[in-house]
């Protein structure tokens, strides 16, 4: 187990190293002066420029520059945004919760829909239910998310004004941002007719969450289904059946648990898809999260912001993958066995 941890950690560190190296090199590859690209400071006089160039180690070797860069990043100094001249870390802290909130609800919806449907389809393999679920899932899986998002908008916002198509909340409601997580903020806020505000926030959530959840849900259904099918074929299920367990007991005691364990590592794939889809969803629904912010940064040629987002998003993805891997190892005895046998 210890060896395994070391190995995973090694993977984590190597990948993070490569990402940071790439991010660092962007500072030099982007058009313009690297001093300005790294710091984001645009209005510098000669002395300030010299001083900054000194602190960034611009006259030293690339290796030393990289070390300085790493140290700055670890201190939370991502430089200033070109367009606002404010520290990027503040912007990231402002926009990140919106993305996390959206992804969280989408993930919740994915689990709530994906696991039971996958289970159901797996148990009723080759029956009508299975075919219907599988067909629907395959169809939903083949629809690009920007298309489904726009179709939702067309149906639910433009043709029938049921759900709003942009933002997190009607802007006339003024909710002070304390945690950055809107539902929490509304709870903490001191304002009249909170119920109406909650309703407004929830209606804003519906379309983005649905759009975002489609793709991971279909994937999860597929994963869960094949895993359940595998489990159903195994001898201990037959044994349990002959013992006379009811279907209900069988599923809850044996099938569900044994089916879910092998797919845990694949959850990181879900996260991957969720992350990229979040960016697209945010653009479609003008959701003020990190994806929306990144696209604005690209439009504004805000190099420090692009660099910082790349570094952060990539690092988060890697960390999630590794953590899930380790988690899988902890809960799945079979996986531990394979490891020891090597």
């Amino acid at each position, binding site marked *: 187990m210890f060896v395994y941890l070391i190995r995973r950690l090694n993977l984590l560190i190597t990948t993070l190293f490569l990402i940071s190296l790439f991010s660092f090199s962007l500072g030099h590859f982007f058009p313009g002066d690297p001093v300005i690209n790294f710091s984001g400071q645009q209005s510098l006089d000669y002395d300030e420029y010299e001083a900054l160039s000194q602190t960034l180690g611009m006259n030293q070797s690339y290796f030393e520059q990289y070390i300085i860069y790493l140290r700055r990043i670890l201190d939370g100094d991502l430089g200033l945004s*070109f*367009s*606002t001249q404010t520290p990027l870390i503040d912007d990231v802290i*402002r926009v990140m919760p919106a993305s996390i909130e959206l992804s969280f609800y989408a993930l919740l*919806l994915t689990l*709530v*829909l994906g*696991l*039971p449907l996958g*289970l*159901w389809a797996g148990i009723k393999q080759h029956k009508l239910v299975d075919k219907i679920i599988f067909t629907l899932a395959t169809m939903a899986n083949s629809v690009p998310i920007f298309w489904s998002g726009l179709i939702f*908008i067309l149906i639910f*916002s*433009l043709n029938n*004004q*049921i759900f*709003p*198509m*942009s*933002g997190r909340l*009607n*802007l*006339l*409601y*003024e909710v002070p941002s304390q945690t950055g997580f809107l539902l929490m903020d509304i709870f903490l806020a001191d304002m009249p*007719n909170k119920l*109406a505000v909650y*309703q*407004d926030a*929830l*209606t804003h959530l*519906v379309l983005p969450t649905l759009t975002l959840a489609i793709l991971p849900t279909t994937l999860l259904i597929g994963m869960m289904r094949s895993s359940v099918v595998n489990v159903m074929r195994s001898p201990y299920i037959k044994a349990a059946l002959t013992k006379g367990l009811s279907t209900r007991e069988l*599923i*809850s005691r044996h099938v*569900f648990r044994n089916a879910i364990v092998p797919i845990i590592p694949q959850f990181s794939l879900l996260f991957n898809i969720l992350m990229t889809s979040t960016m697209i969803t945010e653009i479609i629904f*003008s959701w*003020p999260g990190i994806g*929306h*912010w990144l696209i*604005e940064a690209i*439009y*504004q*040629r*805000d190099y420090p912001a692009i660099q910082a987002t790349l570094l952060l998003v990539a690092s988060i993805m890697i960390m999630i993958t590794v953590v899930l891997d380790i988690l899988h190892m902890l809960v799945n005895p079979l996986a531990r066995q394979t490891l020891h046998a090597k």
Partner: protein
Amino acid sequence: MIDIKLLNLFIMVLTCFITLGCEQKSNDTLKSGLIYCSEGSPENFNPQTTTSSITIDASGRQIYDRLLELNPITHEIVPSLAKNWTSNPEGTVYNFFLRDDVSFHNTQYFTPNRNLNSDDIIFSFNRWRVKSHPFHDVADSYPYMQTQQLNLLIEDIIRISDHQIQIRLVQPSNSFIEQLATDYMVILSAEYGAQLSLKEEKQLIDTQPVGTGPFKFQEYIKDQYIRFKVHENYWGDKPKLSQLVYDITPQSSTRLAKLLSAECDVISYPTASEMLILQDKDGINVQSKTPENTSYWAFNTLKPPFDQKIVRQALALAIDKQQIYKTIYYGTAFPADSLLPPSSWAYNNKLTQYEYDPVKAKELLIQAGIKSGFEMEIWAPNIERAYNPNAIKMAEVIKANLALVGISVTIIDFEWTALRKKLSMNEHDSVLFGWNADMSDPDNYLRPVLSCSAAIIGINRAAWCEPKFDELLVNAELSDSLEKRKAYLIQAQEVLNTELPLFPIAHSLSFIAKQDNIHNVRFEAFSAISFKYAEKN
């Protein structure tokens, strides 16, 4: 386990339906607030420091008042912060008598202790006029006043009493009184200035503004929204709205969709291609503004080969303007031959036209030594402007036109503020840009766009400085009769037409669209948008 999951699913669906049912119930916050979906993020909240109409739209008529106002219908100058004014017969000394009941905004960052008085007027004017003023250096430049040379025109501003000031001019000026009513002549608070000086936070004067206008600034998150609250103690008719929010939505199609889904009450600049949808839609109406603007294609005259007149002329000849009117403006614009629109009294209708002639264009290019395969860039803003509904598409039409004469074009699209910053560094080859007039005076088109002073402070997009042209403008300014003035301005347009630092393309109608329950949004020529009288019912 399944049951619990299914139950969750059921609850989820149920919540959706509940929220659906209750959504219809509206409340006061929604009823008394207005959401304006605007096209871009302002640089700051002080029109003195910019000529960007996004910034001026966001602050000019909302946060601030001026000494005088322009009546939008009669085009007469009417009192505002100044109750009345007098001048001496020569027109060089003006006395302004101020209202005494004007209060400044009470915000989270400033509590006023006194009403408006002469100090505030002097503070606001001297900020852009006097180099030694403590706040002069807070902004890089005051482009409008500097190009109009108002800082040179005003000799002195004298405080006569608490509510009377005297402005002395170096020479009489035809347009001085009208200038005072433009969006740029805003009145700031001297007391707030003093407070910021004390805290050594002078730069906040433009980003956390305090004024006397109908709305006070509350919050701004770049690329997202601006929030204004009503100024409770406003001196004039109290605004009907309690809250005004600018929802920053750069994409025009998104703005249109948000209007249709009732998330915006008013949207800025629907593009010409969207007008058809809007006209047929129930519950939505469209307001238009006369074409007091010009969109143009400016060449960077500092950069070879665009420093050669003949190259610029060749490029102009290669453009099929008719195609542009059809595909970009859908018939909502008038062709532009001069920087001045035909409605102006100084318009020169005898200019030689650059009719579409790719053969001649090619000849001129060969003459200038430009070989086939020459590469150039066209910069374009990625948002709609009053004068240009779709600059990127226009750039594509031009690109196709130029391909026929052997020039290959790279289009570079920029976000608005980034574009303006980049342009002032003069690194571009050419740019699709334009100008919105601030007053009916023809000088307002020529001087801020192409004069040498505009080139110096970096808002002359052609980086063009021609002494002959500037001299004509000065002569026009100094002439005693309208006839002489017109003659000089006509000559100035001739110079532009042969030198062609920029190629005028169109004078465009511009629009806002709004829900039927919104009334009295002021959207008029020579002024930024105003929500002072806006109502929602």
